[in-house]
């Protein structure tokens, strides 16, 4: 099973949202890392068939998803970035509705919906109207509906927004258990969400796929660029202006700064082991004003 994008470009008038993106995915969990406006949502909309690409092809098992859209949608699960719902539906009714439109048999749908609602921790509120759910509950419902048809390709656009840490751990475990023989692609700004579960990370910057690979491999690309140094508080402002700061920790009248820099930023700076968050800041440093 594979999903392949070849030279996919999407442009709106003068704006190029995606620029010649190509990649091939086999079963596994993929994290799509990118800042706001990098093209993540556009990419997901193209893969899920909501949006048509300007040029290029998207194939699933070597068949164009547009030519074979009915079959592809049968094996697709999608959570959009702005997950909407029918406010008067209860959680269970919403799940049954999605199951019906995914072509699932009524009896099987009821069983599957109950299973998924339990998995995401909504079994106690399944008969409550969605408009009365909290933000986290709505998001969990969104994740559950994406998985109803046991999809081969699962696309989750910012699935952990609004989830508390305990719910994020539950989500990570859910994805890990689900992802055997499936292609799961999820986008997030919360780097730790993909650090632990993604087999590979794709870095999308201004519509261009800048890099891909396991997080350990990607992190190695910035080895030697991450430093820690202590500065006096009166020199702090200057350091903040001159360098890309990953973290700052105040200790009395000094501050420990974690800096991303190709050159040594200060005489007393020491190289430290980079993290995925450092990688994110390194790639998207222009958005950070550096």
């Amino acid at each position: 099973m594979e999903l392949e994008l070849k030279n996919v470009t999407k442009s709106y008038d003068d704006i190029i949202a995606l620029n010649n993106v190509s990649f091939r995915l086999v079963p596994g969990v993929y994290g799509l890392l990118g800042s706001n406006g990098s093209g993540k949502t556009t990419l997901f909309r193209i893969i899920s068939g909501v949006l048509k690409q300007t040029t290029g092809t998207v194939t699933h098992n070597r068949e164009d998803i547009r030519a074979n859209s009915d079959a592809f949608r049968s094996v697709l699960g999608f959570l959009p970035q702005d997950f909407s719902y029918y406010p008067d539906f209860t959680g269970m009714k919403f799940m049954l509705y999605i199951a019906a439109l995914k072509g699932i048999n009524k009896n099987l749908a009821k069983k599957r919906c109950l299973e998924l609602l339990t998995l995401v921790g909504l079994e106690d509120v399944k008969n409550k109207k969605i408009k009365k759910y909290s933000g986290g509950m709505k998001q969990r419902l969104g994740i559950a509906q994406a998985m109803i048809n046991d999809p081969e390709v699962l696309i989750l656009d910012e699935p952990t927004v609004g989830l508390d840490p305990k719910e994020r751990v539950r989500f990570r475990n859910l994805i890990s258990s689900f992802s055997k023989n499936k292609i799961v692609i999820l986008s997030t700004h919360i780097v730790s969400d993909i650090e632990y579960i993604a087999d590979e990370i794709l870095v999308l910057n201004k519509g261009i796929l800048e890099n891909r690979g396991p997080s350990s491999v990607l992190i190695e690309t910035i080895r030697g660029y991450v430093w820690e140094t202590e500065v006096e508080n009166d020199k702090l402002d200057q350091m903040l202006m001159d360098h890309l700061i990953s973290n700052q920790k105040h200790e009395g009248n000094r501050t420990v700064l974690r800096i991303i820099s190709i050159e040594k930023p200060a005489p007393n700076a020491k190289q430290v082991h980079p993290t995925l968050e450092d990688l994110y800041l390194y790639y998207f440093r222009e958005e950070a004003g550096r």
Partner: protein
Amino acid sequence: MDNNTIKKIAHDEIKADDVQMQLVIDLGKQKINQNHLLRYSLFNLFCSSLRFTRIRTWLTQFSLLLLTAFFITKMISKEPSVLIIQCVTIAIIFSAFFFINELFQSFTTGMWELEQTLKYDLRQHTMTKLLIFGVADLCLILCLALICQGVVSIPFWQIILYLLVPFNITCIVLFSLFTIWRNNLTSFIFWIGSGLIVMGTVILINAFNVYELGVAYWGIAFTLSTVFLGAIVMEMMKTKKWEAYY
């Protein structure tokens, strides 16, 4: 295998491999599920659309029918026929609003993006709902026309024309709104558009004596509006028109 051998093994218990049995059962279930997913049934889609239409919508339509029927029968000898037809026309237009509001729920609630990715996609689902609500509205119009016929001294087919022409025009305006603002349609835009239609209708039927126009003109208006509405619906059914644009 001779009879002796058969007799010897007759009472031997063949132990089942439970693990393999469960594996086969699981594979079978998986295959059934896959078949369900790949199966394509417009009848199932029709039933699902009917099942998940809000009860409130059907109750509203039924209440509208009952209220209008009650109102007409109460007005039998008291009011001119024209006023009765005008009231029924307004009721039909409201009926169209409620059904079209339900039809466009996917857009006004923002669900369109998700529904576009489902097996029965947004186009198929919306067209199925259009069929259901279209037939229901026609039945409503027929019922009201039959009730009117018993009350006013106008032929049945003439009443039908008086009701269908404004109904068609209402649908044309609302479907056009949908085409222009599809992905940005909100309840607010929908109901503002609907309010403008009601206002326009009331002004038109009061300012101009439209019911004094010859039946031939009504026939032409019906034909033209039906053809135009048909063209809009055919345009809506085109696959390319359902792709998102931002």
